[in-house]
């Protein structure tokens, strides 16, 4: 990240290569729309590049900073696209045709999770963020992060058991 801050395009490319697929999966599962995820993916990385000088290594991990930018982009994007019609059949975009049935059920359950629980759930359960990273990313307290994650896991279990 130091080299990125110094303006190295190659270092940015390395950082991009490391985080692109997890971040895109996060955005896709948060937005449930591929075209929105595409836009937010670009917006997030371009914001990182523009704001690279403001990142301070002592203020948290790069990962939590990156996902905070992405989460804010999702929230802003959600406000912008609030009136868009719902796109059905998103599971087709998220899973391949030969995916097992429980994988499809998992994506459906994730989509049914409220957005304020889904982000905490994805970060904590899928991406392995600890409570502090979740709190930093979502700009909430650590206790709140722990509570959200707990509620999200409980809700997901219910959704998967009833599916």
């Amino acid at each position, binding site marked *: 990240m130091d080299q990125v801050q110094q303006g190295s*395009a*190659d270092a940015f490319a390395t950082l991009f290569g490391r985080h692109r697929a997890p971040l*895109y999966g996060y955005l*896709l599962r948060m937005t449930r729309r591929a075209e929105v995820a595409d836009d937010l*993916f670009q917006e997030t990385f371009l914001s990182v590049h523009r704001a690279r000088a403001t990142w301070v290594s002592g203020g948290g991990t790069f990962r939590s900073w990156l996902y905070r930018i992405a989460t804010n982009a999702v929230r802003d994007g959600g406000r912008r696209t609030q009136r868009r019609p719902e796109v059905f059949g998103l599971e087709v975009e998220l899973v391949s045709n030969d995916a097992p049935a429980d994988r499809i059920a998992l994506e459906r359950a994730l989509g049914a999770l409220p957005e304020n629980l889904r982000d905490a759930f994805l970060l904590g359960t899928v991406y392995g963020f600890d409570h502090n990273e979740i709190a930093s990313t979502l700009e909430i307290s650590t206790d709140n992060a722990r509570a959200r994650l707990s509620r999200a896991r409980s809700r997901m279990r219910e959704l998967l058991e009833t599916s």
Partner: protein
Amino acid sequence: MTDAELDLKLQELGPVEPPRGVQARVLTAVGVSDARVAALIGPEPLPLRMPPARPRWRWPIAVASVAMAAAALYAVVPSPPERAQPDALVPRGFGDIRPSLGLRVAVRSSGQVERLRPGQAYQPGDTLLFRVSSSVPVDIVLRRGDAVLYRGAVPAGDTDLPVGYTLEAGEAAAPFVVEGSGAEARFDMTAVPR
């Protein structure tokens, strides 16, 4: 469902590779070189090659082509000539279509020009002049024996030819002949005295 079972299921929620075009736009926008972009996101995928579509009208076109070929063959193959009925024949082209030609000759002697009449005496040094009359425009030849004196076209009516023939002493008798389109006219000239 226990926490362990949930965590096991969640392992299936892996990363998702973003579209290649989206990645390329981001990297290009921040100044990453093309070579680095290609190395990071892979080469441009080959275009999908679809098999050539079968035309819907393939069979109708084939049938129509065969029918047209058969019709063309029928039109090209010669049929035997029809035999004419002799009683029904109409004679054509037996009328006289030759032009009507006439030749008159004048003689210029001692500065005087007068019409030369058959049997009239003429002298060495006299010059013969020729007037051709034709019923239609026609190409004519004026000759005396094998010698061609004039060749050219004349219109219908009288035409004075732009040639003269000066008599020499002792010339044998030989006719002047004008010919055109199968018709001819002649003027018999007697021998020139010495």
